[in-house]
């Protein structure tokens, strides 16, 4: 910036503010500050005048008033007498739910499609290319709408399950696929169920411990123990034993058609499914491209070196290529997660009550508090984005340490 090693010998002149590198940066910053202050002042002054002219004010008191509307998907207790603030929280949770589900599904789809795009099977390769290109090049809003219409048109309404000779029937008597959503059994936790869950968690830990043990044994002694079936054994046998010994403390609440709708079980609503799938398939196409680029970026010499060590193709992929590709793939994939979360704000197109639907939708409409609502809306998304960016930066820093 400025260096004072050579103090000005001649007297100060005004032109030095622009021409002298010692002062120029200060001049520029002062000018920028003035412009910024003027801009903010201008906007603030306008806001004040406009509000005065319309007789309105800025206040967040509306958040405490009863909302007056109902929300279908409620992760926390809520009814129409709850406050707008509570409706906002319901919206936040719904956003997080769809973002979480979407990210997981998109990752699975993306990794599978990305690997298959490099498959040596021509048809699969081309099919995956069609999938990736079709979804990458069409706006996500159109996909959300199309998938929503597919859902409604292709699945039967609950009334099709009615009568003695229904058009549709439930899968295994436990799953119902309707155009209002998918109804699945819900577990009922009775006393003793905690023990079963505890045993199951212990088994999962056991599986990991066993796998570590076999790995160490392999490295130390070269002895290769089987891994597949013992893992399954550890995972299921103790849990099932405890389950039956305790007298089946976990039972299932099966959905059944009563009245207008299926009652009981858990309903995954059509709007959630449409949004979830649309976002997952759309983002999955982008992740597939990232995965493919990551795999291709791993130097060919690595594959050849692994092959010359006598590794089989599957092992080359798992032990040599993927670990290296992962480091390249993960940063862009995280920014895809970010995009997915931001795109979930399109929920209003299908009537999924996320934050944009509650706070930015009905609350804004009913209270007319546009500035406050939009401000809160932006703050929420900003918080999410910044925290994901922070995680990504930490990850990048850690990854960079491992580089040569």
């Amino acid at each position: 910036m400025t260096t004072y090693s050579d103090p000005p010998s001649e007297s100060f002149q005004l032109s030095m503010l622009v021409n002298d590198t010692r002062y120029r940066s200060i001049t520029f910053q002062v000018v920028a500050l003035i412009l910024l202050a003027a801009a903010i002042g201008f906007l603030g002054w306008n806001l004040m005048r406009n509000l005065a002219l319309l007789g309105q004010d800025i206040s967040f008191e509306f958040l405490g008033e009863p909302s007056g509307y109902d929300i279908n998907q409620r992760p926390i207790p809520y009814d129409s007498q709850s406050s707008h603030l509570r409706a906002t929280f319901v919206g936040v949770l719904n956003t997080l739910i769809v973002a979480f589900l979407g990210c997981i599904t998109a990752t699975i789809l993306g990794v599978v499609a990305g690997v298959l795009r490099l498959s040596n099977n021509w048809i699969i390769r081309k099919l995956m290319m069609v999938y990736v290109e079709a979804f990458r090049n069409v706006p996500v809003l159109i996909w959300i709408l199309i998938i929503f219409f597919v859902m409604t048109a292709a699945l039967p309404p609950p009334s099709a399950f009615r009568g003695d000779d229904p058009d549709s029937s439930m899968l295994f008597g436990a799953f119902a696929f309707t155009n209002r959503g998918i109804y699945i059994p819900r577990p009922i936790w009775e006393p003793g169920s905690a023990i079963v869950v505890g045993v199951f968690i212990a088994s999962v830990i056991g599986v990991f411990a066993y796998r570590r043990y076999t790995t160490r044994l392999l490295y130390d002694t070269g002895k290769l123990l089987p891994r597949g079936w013992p893992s399954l054994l550890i995972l299921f046998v103790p849990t099932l034993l405890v389950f039956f010994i305790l007298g089946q403390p976990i039972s299932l609440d099966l959905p059944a058609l009563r009245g207008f709708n299926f009652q009981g079980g858990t309903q995954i609503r059509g709007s959630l499914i449409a949004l979830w799938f649309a976002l997952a398939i759309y983002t999955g196409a982008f992740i597939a491209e990232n995965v493919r680029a990551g795999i291709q970026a791993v130097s060919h010499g690595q594959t050849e070196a692994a092959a010359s060590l006598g590794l089989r193709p599957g092992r080359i992929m798992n032990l040599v290529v993927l670990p290296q590709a992962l480091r390249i793939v993960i940063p862009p994939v995280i920014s895809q997660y970010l995009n997915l979360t931001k795109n979930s704000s399109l929920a209003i197109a299908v009537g999924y009550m996320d934050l944009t639907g509650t706070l930015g939708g009905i609350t804004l409409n009913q209270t007319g508090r546009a500035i406050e609502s939009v401000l809160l809306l932006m703050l929420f998304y900003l918080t999410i984005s910044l925290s994901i960016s922070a995680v990504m930066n930490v990850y990048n820093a850690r990854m960079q340490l491992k580089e040569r």
Partner: protein
Amino acid sequence: MKKSVFLGALTVAGLAAGAAAAATLDDVKARGTLNCGVSTGLAGFSAPNANGEWEGFDVAVCRAVATAVLGDPNAVEFVPTTGKTRFTALASGEIDMLARNTTWTLSRDADLKFTFIGVNYYDGQGFITPKALGVSSAKELDGATVCIQTGTTTELNLADFFRVNNISYEPVPIETNAEAQQQYLAGACDVYTTDASGLAATRATFETPTDHVILPEIISKEPLGPLVRHGDSEWGDVVRWSLNAMIAAEELGVTSANVEEMSSSTTDNPEINRLLGTEGNLGEMLGLEADWAKNIIMQVGNYGEVFEANIGESTPIGLARGLNAQWTDGGLLYAPPFR
């Protein structure tokens, strides 16, 4: 230096603001067009036709005001608004008036600072359901899935109705009327609820309208009317009396067919004379031409004509006059005297 620039910016802003705050009526006259907010598409009330011209019952109110002020029913710039954007558009001055089947409520009047200048359609919220469900009353809808269009008072009425009757329901919010219909027809919801006028219009477009019944309950009062900003009463008067002129004309038997003849000479009825500007100076009081009301009736029509042309029984919407008949016919339409 910083401070003076800042103050300078504020002064400029203040001057601009002072210069811009003129009366809406003068603005409209100077501009030569009326900016009128309408809905993005509701058959019968406001929707662009295949040629891109706006048509409908709400659109006619806009055209009436444009005719009164500018003498030309086509001097209207229609601004499509959604439930979310309509109030900001009006508050910010983007539109001069809003005619978008908006329900007159106290909070919109007092809290949002708008003036409802009257009611052009008395509506109420109802339910439509497939006949096959065998429902005859809205109170039998316990556990039903209900499609609603978001951004309206409909959601609040619905919540209140089900709460009062202590029955449960599952709301499915949908953004546009067309999509709500698709959901309803596909069976994704058991009931579709919106204003009764909208239900009739919707049912008319179904493949087999007779398979669907409109339930007898009307669960809310929905007086729909045009509105303007608070703080410009002169403009509010112009819009109010443009609507009243259409209503009064029907009551007095003035139609677009006979208005020319009635205004060519003074008639026996002094109120008709005052309305048509052949007697008195009502137009001048409003800041308009003397023949303002005559122009409205000639170029747009009286209330009854507009109703019949857009949503009446001869149209696909097929609404009966019902509450929207003249008070002399047992309805609620009652224009204050033109005096």
